[in-house]
């Protein structure tokens, strides 16, 4: 195994074949683990009618980095599936909001844990599962529930991805990945849920075998393309968030 490398030359090449209408998951939670460079490449590539999956649509933080909202603003997106269609602070207005309210872009609002579990289920061959989350709320209105041991649960379905865009600290040529700290977040889950997982990698890509088998966070069997993130300014890296006055 692992005789050939999954590394490819650039971000443009990594996203070149993504067709219109794809379902694409984007890792990341706040700044850590967001595939900034792949998002930027997809903005340039121009695929249309995409369905994007991620925690937020972005745009609430400064400085603004490439996010799902930019793909919406670029006219590439039919629908987003995420845990926030509005900012956590009610006085903030997300760039996405305008497109959502005008109907130019659709959205499916999903509790964050349900979102993660639906993708985990997709990767794990579980087509549907029950959860107590959102029972009795507006989100559960008209949906199927079931009493189990005296408690009411909501039926949720697996969420499969065509592509996962993720960011990792370390990779070997076979695609085994390690994440640094809170960079992990949705990234390993999305890798299991996608037909094709594309990874932007921070550290120089190492030969297969250089990461001990016990230390792998995401097995290389889930990874299809690796791209090394160049140094700034060519490559995009997390920046310190500007704290806002309240």
């Amino acid at each position, binding site marked *: 195994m692992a005789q050939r490398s999954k590394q490819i030359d650039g971000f443009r090449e990594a996203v070149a074949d993504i067709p219109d209408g794809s379902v694409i998951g984007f890792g990341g939670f*706040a700044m850590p683990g967001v595939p900034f460079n792949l998002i930027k490449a997809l903005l340039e590539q121009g695929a249309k009618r995409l369905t994007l999956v991620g925690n937020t649509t972005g745009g609430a933080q400064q400085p603004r980095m490439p996010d799902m909202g930019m793909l919406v603003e670029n006219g590439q997106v039919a629908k987003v599936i995420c845990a926030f269609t509005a900012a956590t602070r009610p006085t903030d207005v997300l760039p996405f909001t305008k497109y*959502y309210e005008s109907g130019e872009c659709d959205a499916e609002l999903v*509790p964050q844990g349900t979102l993660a579990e639906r993708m985990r289920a997709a990767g794990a061959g579980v087509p549907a599962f029950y959860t107590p989350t959102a029972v009795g709320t507006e989100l559960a209105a008209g949906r199927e529930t079931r009493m189990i041991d005296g408690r009411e649960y909501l039926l949720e379905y697996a969420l499969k991805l065509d592509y996962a865009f993720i960011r990792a600290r370390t990779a070997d040529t076979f695609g085994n990945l390690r994440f640094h700290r809170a960079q*992990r977040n949705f990234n390993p889950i999305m890798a299991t849920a996608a037909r094709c997982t594309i990874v932007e990698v921070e550290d120089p890509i190492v030969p297969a075998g250089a990461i001990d088998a016990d230390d792998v966070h995401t097995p290389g069997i889930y990874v299809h393309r690796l791209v090394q993130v160049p140094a700034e300014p060519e490559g995009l890296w997390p920046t310190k968030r500007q704290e806002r006055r309240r």
Partner: protein
Amino acid sequence: MSETKGLNRQQMADRIAREFQDGWLVNLGVGIPVMCSNTDIGERDIVYHSENGVIGYGPVAGPGEEDLNLVNAGGQNVTLKPGASIVHHADSFAVIRGGHIDVTVMGAYEVSMTGDFANWKLTGQKGGGIGGAMDLAACAKRVFIILEHVTRRNEPRLLSACTLPITARGVVKLVSTNYGLFEPTGDGFLLREIAPGLTVDEIRATTGGKLTVADGLKTIQV
């Protein structure tokens, strides 16, 4: 957000943090709740959990010691305490949904006297911001809420019934506002402790349902 009366934001967080019991696993939400990890509560062993899979974080990182890949639920750069571990998002919500969280502390727009609360959608808004709130509200052993006592228009946020779409029903056990510390009682709120500078009458005038007052009402230590 104006904070003209009573406790400031860190003090509201501090009062809630002092409720944390030795050995608890505590989830802190975005906004004021994450400030609880800055509170010194002595020798108690508390493990702070964040939705993004960080288990065992400490105070916000000081200038120059930030790791840009280590954040709490609010996106602030935090530190790790000895014994910390990291898991991915599905495993992190397995911690939550599996009932392993002793208490979750969240912000809210409204809390009702029956323990409902609303924190994801404003009136007339299309969509909203759920984040992990519904998972946490439905699954944590306890839900504590921190919020400003009144709106900008001086209208109560502690209500007989929520007017906004709820996040979960009947789950709130304790509420910390800038006016005091409250428990929903079903037909109103019990004022357990009062913030310095406030009077019971002021609080009664800005609180929905019946306000009961704890015997020998204490003032919150700040």
